[in-house]
């Protein structure tokens, strides 16, 4: 059976990174020893187009550290896919900026994790990184390229959000907020509690209410939600269950394929060196945990929820890491609200 292609393939083109972020889910630093060659990467662009993929989000590690990134980016554009680049914004030279402008991506996203240098630099593990990312952001905004900012929230930077908001107001960037999950370098003690997570949701909702889209575009990522009884939707698109292996696809720098890059290694379901991408994607068994969800797969609280058929148990990455299994995401606004009401009565 031929399936519709993913809307977005999230592709770690290298694991090499010049920062050392405490929340990095892939514990990036050194390049993998077996990363795809330039020829393999270019072929993969063609293969992604071949399965009907509409866009590629190029990330790392730090994607701009891979020497042939412009060739990969150009091929993505040549075959007619959207391109976005997710960079840490650190040490972007003028020649790299020019390469980015030449490639003309649909989006360039930088990561800002603190409103103050001390916090951002501590989280990112390198002094001076805040100053550089701010300069990068300003340069991108000035260029007129569509620009985004990702903030990954955990205990250390929850309180930084108002300062970051102040900084981003009126810049025209899209601000994506996501919760850090305990993969890679992030330890459990830094993960938000459910109440802190609810605070984060309140912040997004209040900001959306207070500011127009012209002033600030803000949205929760795939792990922010769902189906709150009192809060308005936090995401840009309505949540309709984890899209790993359905409308998104994860690619590791050595050609490993999984439904979503946020998931841990045990979810790798093939490698393009061993099997063509088309075969992996169209395999009935691929990502069956999202493609064929039954009520019996859901945790008990999710199974009894009104929205179970749409939600299917929330974000797989959060569910796996915080509940030990899929389809039982405990970071669910609706569930947390029920808990708050009980503790209230």
């Amino acid at each position: 059976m031929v399936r519709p292609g993913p809307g977005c393939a999230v592709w770690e083109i290298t694991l090499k990174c010049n920062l050392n972020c405490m929340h990095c889910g892939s514990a990036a630093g050194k390049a993998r020893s077996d990363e795809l060659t330039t020829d393999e990467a270019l072929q993969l662009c063609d293969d992604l187009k071949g399965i009907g993929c509409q866009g590629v989000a190029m990330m790392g590690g730090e994607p701009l550290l891979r020497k042939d990134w412009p060739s990969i980016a150009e091929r993505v554009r040549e075959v007619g896919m959207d391109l976005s680049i997710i960079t840490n914004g650190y040490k972007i030279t003028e020649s790299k900026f020019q390469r980015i402008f030449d490639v003309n991506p649909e989006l360039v996203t930088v990561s800002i994790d603190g409103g103050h240098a001390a916090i951002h630099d501590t989280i990112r593990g390198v002094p001076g990184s805040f100053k550089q990312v701010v300069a990068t952001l300003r340069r991108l905004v000035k260029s007129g390229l569509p620009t985004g900012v990702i903030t990954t929230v955990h205990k250390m930077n929850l309180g930084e959000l108002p300062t970051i908001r102040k900084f981003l107001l009126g810049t025209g960037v899209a601000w994506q907020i996501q919760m850090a999950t305990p993969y890679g370098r992030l330890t459990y003690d830094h993960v938000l509690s459910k109440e802190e997570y609810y605070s984060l949701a309140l912040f997004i909702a209040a900001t959306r209410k207070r500011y127009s889209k012209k002033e600030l575009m803000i949205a929760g990522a795939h792990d922010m939600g769902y189906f709150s009884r009192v809060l308005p939707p936090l995401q840009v698109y309505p949540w309709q269950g984890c899209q790993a292996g359905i409308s998104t696809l994860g690619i590791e720098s050595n050609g490993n394929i999984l439904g979503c890059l946020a998931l841990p290694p045990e979810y790798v379901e093939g490698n393009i060196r061993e099997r063509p991408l088309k075969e992996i994607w169209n395999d009935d068994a691929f990502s069956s945990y999202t493609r064929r969800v039954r009520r019996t797969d859901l945790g008990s609280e999710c199974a009894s929820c009104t929205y179970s058929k749409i939600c299917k148990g929330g974000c797989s990455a959060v569910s796996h890491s915080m509940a030990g299994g899929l389809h039982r995401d405990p970071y669910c606004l609706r569930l947390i609200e029920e808990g708050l009401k009980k503790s209230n009565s």
Partner: protein
Amino acid sequence: MSLMDMIPVGIELLRLSGRDGVYAILSRVFKAQPTPLAYRRRIRPLGASVGLSEAEVDEVISGSSNVTVLPSWLKWGLVAFIVVVLILSAIAVTGSYVPWYTNPTYVPGTDYASIRPKDFL
């Protein structure tokens, strides 16, 4: 699941099908629930931890206030009542027919690593 449980599911399906305007009206009218003062008091400190004032928290969790500003055609009259009942029934029936075994629909946009300014338009 009861018929009443199907109503919110049906409302969500309206949003998924891109009928945002209808979704906004119906969700204000039928999904919103009064937020008790005690509950608001519990939530306010959570907002304070991210720099939100009590007023900002109240504003964002008080979707219920919109119940008092129903459109006049909906607020008054037997005919409007019947229309609402018919709408609810249709939505509930739709909600009850969401299948588990779908070939998942391809989603053109995605929240995965690619939220762009134009996604907000």
